[in-house]
């Protein structure tokens, strides 16, 4: 084999081994952490979207309970109320719910038997969709109903909004905190694993140093090597998380996996910078570690 060596065709080999079994554990650890960080990022985005959805659904609608007066039938009273409300500024749509829908809403509280008694006065409901940009206030709706001579109660969900907004905020910030925690842990572990792998190359660093290599030469060598390894690991982790996110989106249709955590296609772009960020952290860690080792030697 050695007799075959052709000096004219010789090209310098990489100064670091092409494949080092010690790098495998670095890539695995970084890939797993990047995967977890990407999943929490997707979770944080979905939680934020869910929180927005909850509050916008509540603030974007109101429910009006209409009680018939005199000889007017409940259905007629509800129709009149819907007509009166539709003309209020800030209302997109107002529609009277059929008796069956009103009964369905009351059934959990009154039971099927009570509803079968026809003389039980079942109030009619009017569902009001508000203009999301300039929603009408409850007082505006109340005023319009009084003006039309309708006995009704407006529920603009204000009783619940504060609690729901608080809950949404907790979900949003918890998800963000979780993401920051995992991302910080990922960064720290990448830095630690890089330093550990660098220590395994101490002999090479010493030989280069004693052969007259400038610190920048050695630093560049390891910086590039570990940045490439971390970028590859980041790519694996981000791809894994993107696949999970895509499956969640496909499984849940337009609502994402569940209405509680709706994942959108655009959310998947959030994991795209992961290889770059992982490479950056590893490069900085390798740079610091290499400079530290060279400093000890010098």
């Amino acid at each position, binding site marked *: *084999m*050695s*007799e*075959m*060596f052709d*000096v*004219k065709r*010789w*090209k*310098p*080999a990489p*100064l*670091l*081994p092409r494949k080092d079994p010690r790098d495998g554990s670095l890539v695995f650890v970084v890939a797993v952490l990047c995967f977890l960080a990407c999943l929490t990022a997707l979770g944080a985005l979905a939680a934020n979207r869910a929180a927005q959805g909850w509050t916008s659904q509540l603030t974007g609608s109101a429910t009006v309970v209409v009680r018939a007066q005199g000889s007017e039938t409940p259905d007629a009273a509800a129709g009149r109320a819907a007509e009166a409300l539709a003309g209020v500024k800030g209302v997109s749509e107002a529609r009277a719910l059929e008796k069956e829908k009103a009964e369905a809403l009351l059934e959990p509280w009154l039971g099927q038997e009570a509803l079968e008694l026809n003389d039980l006065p079942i109030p009619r409901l009017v569902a009001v969709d508000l203009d999301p940009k300039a929603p009408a206030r409850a007082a505006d709706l109340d005023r319009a109903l009084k003006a039309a001579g309708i006995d009704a109660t407006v529920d603009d969900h204000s009783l619940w909004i504060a609690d729901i907004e608080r809950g949404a905020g907790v979900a949003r910030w918890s998800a963000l905190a979780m993401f920051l925690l995992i991302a910080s842990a990922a960064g720290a572990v990448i830095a630690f694993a890089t330093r550990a792998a660098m220590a395994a190359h101490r*002999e*090479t660093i*010493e*030989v*280069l*140093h*004693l*052969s*007259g*290599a*400038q*610190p920048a*030469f050695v630093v560049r060598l390891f910086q590039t090597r570990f940045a490439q390894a971390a970028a590859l690991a980041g790519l694996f982790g981000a791809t894994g998380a993107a696949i999970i996110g895509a499956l969640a989106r496909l499984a849940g249709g337009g609502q994402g996996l569940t209405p509680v955590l709706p994942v959108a296609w655009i959310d998947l772009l959030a994991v795209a910078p992961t290889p770059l960020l992982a490479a950056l952290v590893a490069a900085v860690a390798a740079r610091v570690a290499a400079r530290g080792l060279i400093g000890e*030697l*010098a």
Partner: protein
Amino acid sequence: MSRNRDAASTGESPAGPILRFDGVGMRYGRAAEVLRDVNFDLAPGSFHFLTGPSGAGKSSLLKLIYLAERPSRGTIEMFGRDVEAVALSDRPFLRRRIGVVFQEFRLLDHLTAFDNVALPLRIEGGKPESYRADVAELLTWVGLKNRMHALPPTLSGGEKQRLAIARAVVNRPDILLADEPTGNVDDAHALRILKLFVELNRLGTTVLIASHDEDLVARSGQPVLHLDKGRLRTFGRNVRQEPGA
């Protein structure tokens, strides 16, 4: 990046000694000194053995010369300049003028024999086409013509030794240091290696070999620096007398 620039940056003075130790002491951490009051000069182109029992400080003295350690006191002048005054950024250029054959070889196992020898030239920034013929010639000279593509773990002790020598001299250093270069080979190989050093010395390289092989030292007829318990005791020609020794 070249050695010409190195010579300028390290202030070579061809007329004086190439290496001077003046009252040098050295310790590791807070331990007792392993070298004490060491004084000597080496003239350019000289050849010396550094002898002494194990633990006498031979390897430590070599480390001071190849800038792997720093003296705890005293002055070391190399190429006419106090090495402690050489800026950290210029030290790599100084190291390139010193070839070292380490006792444990310190070859890079994942690189072929050819790549190991080419390493110092790559570090200097040379282009492969400008030095590959020289590397091949040098490997042939040390008897490794048919082992150029071999990885160090597949080489015998003697082959590794000759490979380490080739790497140490490939960029034509001004000073060549060798730490127990015949420690792992039989007498025939030891003589062969000694001849390589003598030939390099004839080409103008200053050679300093640490060895406890008294037979080899005696046969070489070269002057000796003898260390005992960290102190320099014996001197041959080309060596300045230590005051009070």
